[in-house]
């Protein structure tokens, strides 16, 4: 199908984009890579009246390599992360995850900010950035604010992004040199959305460990008990199964069926094994 009629504007600055968004008299939608939005528009699931194209805003393409973190502009593409064309704070976790995200022809246009803003429950970045304890930086009419990624995503396609705010970028803490990461995506076909996603980050030098399940019928699910176990370098397979089982059972609001629960168990066990190996 074809998208419905729409107006289009390409502002020169982020401030101008926010102003357009705040003062639009019709339903306005920010577009970056458009790899989800244009599919939804072609299917007429979304029919915004005004598109504000932010893909080339210099502020959103900025990359800052701090001593303790890397800030990636919202319009950095998945392919740039996959190829290592931007600094990697995650010892290879982010490039690895990027390479599993959809297909190359999608990754060359799709952006990290777009993925966070859409908050598809099965998407890679919300889960990976939550596991890395990253922050999302938001820019709006009332200024700039930062939120932990793990709190920014609130549900299925739901975030704390306000009506007239635009994601400016993500601030990702740098892992210590001896940190370990695990990443497992279960999908029936390469490039499909995940049926289950597990991300593990263990950084003992910073006293940090986190295990996150993605494609978890909601926002990325932080597995607290399992995170603690990984932090204690627990290597007993039975203890790992029990911790995971307990975490998944406590998430009763996710309503996992038996098959989904099993997929999440398998993904998380394999991802933790990568860290302990």
């Amino acid at each position, binding site marked *: *199908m*074809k*998208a*419905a*009629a*729409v*107006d*289009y504007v*390409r502002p020169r600055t982020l401030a101008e984009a926010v102003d357009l968004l705040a003062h639009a008299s019709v339903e306005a939608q920010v*577009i970056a890579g*458009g*790899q989800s939005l*244009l*599919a939804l*528009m*072609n*299917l007429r699931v979304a029919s915004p009246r005004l*598109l504000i*194209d932010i*893909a080339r805003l210099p502020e959103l393409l900025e990359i800052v390599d701090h001593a303790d973190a890397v800030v990636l502009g919202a319009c950095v593409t998945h*392919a740039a992360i996959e190829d290592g064309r931007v600094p990697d704070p995650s010892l290879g976790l982010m490039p690895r995850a990027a390479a599993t995200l*959809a*297909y*190359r*022809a*999608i990754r*060359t*246009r799709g952006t990290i900010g777009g993925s966070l803003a859409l908050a598809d429950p099965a998407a890679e970045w919300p889960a990976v950035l939550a596991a890395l304890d990253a922050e999302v930086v938001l820019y709006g009419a009332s200024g700039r604010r930062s939120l932990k990624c793990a709190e920014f995503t609130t549900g299925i396609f739901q975030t704390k992004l306000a009506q007239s705010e635009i994601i400016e970028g993500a601030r990702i803490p740098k892992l210590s040199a001896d940190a370990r990461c695990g990443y497992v995506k279960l999908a029936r*076909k*390469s*490039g499909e959305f995940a049926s289950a996603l597990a991300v593990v980050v263990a950084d003992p030098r910073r006293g940090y460990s986190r295990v996150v399940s993605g494609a978890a019928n909601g926002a990325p699910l932080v597995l607290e008990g399992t995170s603690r176990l990984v932090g204690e370098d627990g290597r007993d397979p039975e203890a790992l199964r029990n911790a995971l089982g307990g975490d998944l059972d406590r998430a009763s609001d996710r309503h996992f069926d038996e098959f989904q629960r099993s997929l999440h168990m398998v993904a998380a066990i394999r991802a933790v094994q990568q860290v302990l190996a």
Partner: protein
Amino acid sequence: MTAINLQINGAAVADDVPPRLSLADFLRERRNLTGTHLGCEHGVCGACTVLVDGAPARSCLMLAVACDERAVETIEGFASDPVIAALRRAFHQHHALQCGYCTPAMLITARDLILRKRAGSEREIRTGLAGNICRCTGYTNIVTAIAEAAKEIGKEAPNAQ
């Protein structure tokens, strides 16, 4: 209508387009470049893959207006490209197409895999082709053809990027 200026297959093009027009429809209906095919129009089938600023992209998931000041290459622009030439020969030899609907995008995707050195094994090729659907061949001959073209190109220019 919005005015756009872009490069298509190396030539400067200026046009006025309605914002909702996809790059694919722009290429096919306004520029008569019908080698770019439309299958699903939501990014899944890969038939509409072209190069935008040198990188493969879904022309159904890009607006023509967003291609202002960008360079687009379609299958028609690869007549004298050595990698496409090698792929064309290999596709012919190994019967890597039947109806041909997916073929232009298969060639563009395969060229990108070879140039990025992601066509070194059957697994790599199959993973790289996951976003291009073929309903005729069962992929076996396509994978064989790409592997052969990759080998040939590798031999000619072992350090080609």
